């Protein structure tokens, strides 16, 4: 009887916590909205710089109705996705290679860091001449920026794999692919996912900055056009769209984390 009562109590407590957790991001957003409304209503910051929610909502419905928002969003989404695939893909593969052959890190680090730390303006002409003004140049800028977090976290993740477990896989005569799939990937997953969280949020910036260099459509173009037309509500709409994209990507990674790291949660509880 007593035990049964406890089971019940235990699981309702857990359920309540899960619901709270699911709701909390929305509560935050609601809170931010209220804050925003308050700030603009009391003119704490000039409405020129921070337009009230109502104006932004109007701009949003307008941009939605005439298809502007959808068009630019699709462009940026496409660039981002390819950029992410490319950058994260190369980052993970190279990270794996470096983890296996540390000398590679020493050899490649000058190139890699140079890539990562050079602002795009500096090689904008090259970018346009090599990749044109179409999506490919934005895919490149996105790939360049998302590549690095994927890389360094892959290195650390793979390097932290427990040596005794490596011995175990060796003793089972597991080849590189099986060792990767059954040992290295699951073991490095938490760290790799952290890298992907960074990559996911940087991807938006990468695509948008690529669009700044020269582009006909995309959220980066839209934000500059809106800005140059002093259409601040549309700027905010565009930025919020970027945020929603970034949040969705982040959420996706968080979901994978939640799904695959059951064991870590169970061990910690």
């Amino acid at each position, binding site marked *: 009887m007593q035990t049964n009562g406890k089971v019940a109590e235990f699981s309702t407590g857990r359920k309540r916590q899960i619901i709270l957790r699911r709701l909390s991001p929305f509560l935050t957003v609601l809170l931010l909205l209220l804050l925003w409304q308050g700030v603009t209503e009391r003119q704490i910051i*000039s*409405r*020129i*710089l921070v337009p009230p929610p109502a104006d932004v909502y109007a701009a949003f419905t307008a941009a939605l109705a005439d298809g502007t928002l959808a068009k630019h969003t699709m462009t940026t989404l496409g660039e981002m996705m390819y950029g992410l695939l490319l950058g994260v893909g190369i980052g993970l593969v190279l990270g794996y290679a470096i983890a296996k052959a540390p000398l590679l890190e020493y050899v490649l680090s000058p190139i890699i860091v140079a890539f990562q730390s050079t602002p795009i303006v500096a090689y*904008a*002409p090259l970018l*346009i*001449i090599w990749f044109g*003004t179409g999506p490919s140049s934005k895919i490149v800028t996105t790939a360049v920026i998302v590549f690095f977090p994927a890389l360094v976290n892959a290195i650390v993740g793979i390097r932290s794999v427990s040596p005794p477990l490596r011995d175990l896989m060796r003793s089972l005569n597991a080849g590189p692919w099986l060792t990767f799939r059954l040992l290295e990937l699951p073991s490095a997953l938490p760290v790799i996912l952290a890298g992907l969280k960074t990559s996911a949020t940087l991807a938006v910036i990468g695509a948008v900055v690529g669009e*700044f*260099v*020269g*582009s*006909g459509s995309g959220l980066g*173009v839209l934000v*500059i*056009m809106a*800005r*140059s*037309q*002093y*259409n*601040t509500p549309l700027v905010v709409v565009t930025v919020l769209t970027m945020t929603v994209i970034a949040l969705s990507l982040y959420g996706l990674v968080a979901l994978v984390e939640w799904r695959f790291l059951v064991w870590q949660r169970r061990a910690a509880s």
Partner: protein
Amino acid sequence: TNERILLTFIPNVQFAPFYLGIQHDVFSEAGFDVALEHLQEPEVLDLVAVRQANYGIVSGEQVILARSRGRDVVYVFEWFQQYPVALVHASDLDLSDLGALRGLRVGIPGRFGASYSGLTTLLTSAGLNETDIELNEIGFNAPEVFCLGAVDAAMVYANNEPLQIRNLAAAGECGDLDDVGLIMVASQVDLVSNGLIVNRGLLEESPAQIARMVGALRDALQITIDNPAAAYLASLPYVDTLPADDALVVALTDAAAQQQEFLADNPTRSEVAASRRALAEELSEQFDGAALAQFHVLLNSIDLWDADALGFSDLASWEAMRDTLALMNLLGEELGDLDAAFSNEFLAVSDE
């Protein structure tokens, strides 16, 4: 008083009048201790609009756009008398009839800003549509992109990029390109150009202060126009990367002193313009293109600034600009009376 003037872009010889105004105490004699800051154009405008700064330099187009979205700024001094944007093309391409643009690849930084307005004006006066050409958003990379043949023509600032392209061509970096042709937007329509803006609030509170500022700016601009060598020298402390080896500095210092004497005789405007050209030729015998590139940019700019009466803008140029922007569908709802967008009255006041 301490006064911020917000300039656009980055430190550049094109802002020589402001550097000279400070170096030669023009601003301080008018009672201003001026600090210059460089920002992007929308930021300049918004900061003036919310009175974080009293003075800013933006293009007239920005004033109309911003006013249509509730920013009450007033344009009080037209600095560039000619709209500085132009279309650059290979000289062997015949564009005497603008209709020949049809089907060409035209480079533009993006669908925003002065270049876009300029292009639209050109297309309109040629009876063309944006869809009639192949528009390429190439960012601010026109010289390279044009030189390497990725576009047939490009929208540029007349005082800078064509010069760069010519230099590149002279160095044999542009394939078989030997010279470029320029089509000034100003040659088709008079559009309002860059100038000084203030906030409506300031205008109502202290018009006298604005008059003093306008006067000072006009004086500084006049000195720059009259004595470019002095202006170039005054820019050196502000623009780190200006070519300035010792020989050039010596030559310019001499030239500035000579010009001072020459000016004592109250030469006419065209005589002064001739003296500038003479100086340019004299220097080009002594120095190579790279060393003089930025000085030439200054001289080209002066050609866009120079006028009989500095600072005036007329309603027609504002209307032309507004019509262009309306055509481009860029304006917001709150477009009020164009008369409220600018004012020439401070020029008159400061004359007294």
